[in-house]
C-alpha cells in the first residue's frame, strides 16, 4: 500500500507537467491543425534557457523560469511567423514536412550549442524530501506541481473568460466571420502558437531541475505530448489535462508493477490502443473548442 501511494504521488507530480505539455500541443495540433514536431524542441529549449540563466548567469531561479517561458513564447512566435504563415492554406502534409525539418535543425542546433553532456539546473530547494505519512516527495517536485496547477488555472481563465480567449476560439471556428468582427486572424495564429510554445518551454524549465537536460530530451516528450492530445481528443483542453494525468499514471504504475524498461513505451501502446478502439479520443468532446 505505501508503495502504491508513492507511485500515485509521483504520477500526480509528473502529470502536472504532462498536462502543461498536452495543453500547449492541443492548442497547436488540435485547434490550429499544425502537426507541431517542434513542440519537444521548445521543451528542450526551455530547459536549456533555465540552465543558462540560473546555472551560467547565476540569475534567481524563479526569474529564470519566467524568462525561459518568455523566450519560448518568443521563439514560438518566430517559428509561426517565418515558417507557418507563408504556408497558410497548404495541406497538412506540407506543413508537417516543414515542421520535421525545423525539428531536426533545432535539435542539431541545440546539440551543437550545448554539447552532448547532460546539464543540471541548480535550484534553491532543499533535497531533503517532505514526508507526508507513507509518501515522501522532494520539495522541488511539490513546487513544480503547484506551478503547473496555477498555470493550468490561468490558462483556463484565459481561454474561457477573456476577450482574447473568445477571439482565439472564434478565429479557429470561423476565420472569416471572426475577421468581420474585427479579430486580427494572423495575430491570433501567432499568439496561439506562441502560447503553446511558451507552455512547452516552461514545462521543460520546470522539469530541468528534476531530471537532467540533454539535447535529445525533447524527442520522447514530443511523442508523449501527441499521445496526451490524442488521448484527450483533438483540441479538447480539459481532455488534454486529464490525458496528461492519465499518461503519467499509466507510466508510473506500468514502470512500478510491470517493467521499468518499458516505461516510455506505455504512452505509445496507449496511443495505439486508443486509436484502435476510440479514434476520436477517450473523452468525446461535448464542448469542443475548435
Amino acid at each position, binding site marked *: 500500500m505505501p508503495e502504491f501511494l508513492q507511485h500515485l504521488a509521483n504520477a500526480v507530480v509528473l502529470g502536472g507537467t504532462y498536462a502543461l505539455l498536452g495543453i500547449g500541443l492541443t492548442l497547436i495540433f488540435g485547434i490550429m491543425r499544425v502537426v507541431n514536431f517542434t513542440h519537444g524542441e521548445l521543451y528542450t529549449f526551455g530547459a536549456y534557457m533555465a540552465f543558462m540563466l540560473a546555472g551560467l548567469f547565476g540569475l534567481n531561479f524563479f526569474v529564470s523560469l519566467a524568462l525561459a517561458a518568455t523566450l519560448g513564447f518568443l521563439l514560438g512566435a518566430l517559428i509561426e511567423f517565418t*515558417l507557418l504563415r507563408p504556408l497558410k*492554406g497548404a495541406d497538412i502534409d506540407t506543413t508537417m514536412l516543414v515542421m520535421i525539418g525545423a525539428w*531536426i535543425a533545432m535539435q542539431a542546433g541545440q546539440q551543437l550549442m550545448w554539447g552532448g553532456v547532460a546539464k543540471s539546473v541548480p535550484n534553491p530547494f532543499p533535497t531533503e524530501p517532505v514526508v507526508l505519512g507513507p509518501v515522501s516527495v522532494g520539495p522541488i517536485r511539490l513546487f513544480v506541481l503547484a506551478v503547473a496547477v496555477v498555470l493550468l488555472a490561468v490558462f483556463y481563465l484565459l481561454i474561457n473568460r477573456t476577450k482574447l480567449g473568445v477571439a482565439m476560439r472564434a478565429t479557429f471556428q470561423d476565420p472569416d466571420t471572426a475577421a468581420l468582427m474585427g479579430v486580427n486572424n494572423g495575430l491570433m495564429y501567432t499568439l496561439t502558437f506562441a502560447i503553446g510554445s511558451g507552455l512547452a518551454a516552461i514545462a521543460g524549465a520546470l522539469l530541468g531541475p528534476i531530471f537532467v537536460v540533454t539535447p535529445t530530451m525533447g524527442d520522447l516528450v514530443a511523442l508523449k505530448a501527441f499521445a496526451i492530445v490524442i488521448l484527450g481528443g483533438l483540441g479538447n483542453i480539459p481532455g488534454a489535462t486529464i490525458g496528461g494525468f492519465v499518461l503519467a499514471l499509466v507510466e508510473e504504475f506500468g514502470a512500478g508493477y510491470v517493467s521499468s524498461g518499458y516505461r*516510455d513505451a506505455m504512452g505509445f501502446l496507449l496511443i495505439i490502443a486508443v486509436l484502435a478502439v476510440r479514434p476520436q479520443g477517450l473523452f468525446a468532446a461535448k464542448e469542443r473548442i475548435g
Partner: protein
Amino acid sequence: MTARLLPWLFVAIMATLPLWMRDQYILYVLTSTGIFIIAAMSLNLLLGYTGQLSLGHVAFFGIGAYTSALLSLGFDLDYGGAQPFVLDPQPVWLAFLGGILLAAAFGWLIGKLAFRVRGAYFVIVTISFAQVMRMVALNWVDLTEGPMALNNIPPLTVWWPGEGLVPLYKKEYYYLLVLALAVVSFLLIQRVVRSRIGRALIALRENESLARSAGINVTRYLVVATVLSAGMAGAAGALYTHYIRIVDPDVFMFIYTVTMVIMVITGGKGTLAGPVVGGLLFGFLPEVLRDVAQPEVQWIVYGVVMIVIVFFLPQGIVPAVTNLFALKKQSGKKQSGRNGHRPAAPRVSEGASS
C-alpha cells in the same frame, strides 16, 4: 526512346563500377546508399502514391534486420516451459526471407490498425510503433542482446557454378548484389504502380471520397500497399544487417526514417526515379560534409534542406527536371506528340510555394 534507355545505361555504368573504381570507401558508401535507396523506394510507395506519411518506417527496416540476423545466428528463448526453445542457425537467404515476411506481417498489422485513421493520426501511430520496437530491442535482452548488439552476423551468400554457395565477404560483390536487388525493387514498384493497385492508390491519394464512390475498397488497397512497402523495407534492413554484420537498437533511430523521408521528398515523391535521385544525393552529402563539418551541422543542413525543398520545390527534383524538358520540347517542336510518360501526375500542392 532515349528516356527509356537512360535508366538502363545508368544501371550498366553502376554495374561496371567495381572494375575501375578501386576506392573501397566509395564502394562502401555506394553500397549503404543503395540499401537506403531501396528503403526510400519502399517509403515512396506509401508516401508518394498513397499520400500517407509513415514516420515509423525504420521499424520495418529494423524488424527485417533483427529477424534476419537472429534467424541466421540461431537463438534460444526461455519462454517459461521446461525446455527453452532453441533455433539452430538457418541459411542466410532463408533468414533474409524471414526478415521480409515478418516485416510484411507487421505492415499488415499496422495497416489494419492505423488506417482506421488518416493523416496526422497515421503518422503518430507509425512513430509510436517504431519507438515501441526500439524499446523491445533494448529491453528484450534474452533475445536481442539489448545494447550489447548482435555480432558476427554472417554475410549473404551467392551461388556460383562449381563452388556452391559463396559468402560475400568482398565489398565489390556485396555492392553488385545490392545493385541487383535495387533494380529488382525498382521494377517491382514500377509494376505495382502501373497496375490496377497503383491506379487505385493514386485515385485515393487525389480524392479519397471520389475513389470510394467509384467502388475502390480504399482501406484494402492501403493495407496492400503497406504490406508491400513494409516487406521491402524489411528486405533493405536485412541487406543492411548482413552487410555491416552487427545490429543494435540504434537501427530503430528516428533519424533513419527522416533520412528516407528526405530522400523521397527531395527526389520527388510519387515518381519512380525520385527516391533514386534523392537517395544518391543524401547518400553522398554526409560524406562530403563529414570532412568540413561536425555531424550536427549535417543534421542542420538536412533540416534546412527539407524546409527549403517544401517551400521552393514542393514536387521534388525529378518532376521539376521533367517539366523543364517537357517545356523545352514543346516550345522547340511546337507541341508534337505526347509529352513524357510519367506514371503519375505530380500532386498539386496548393499554395505551398506562394
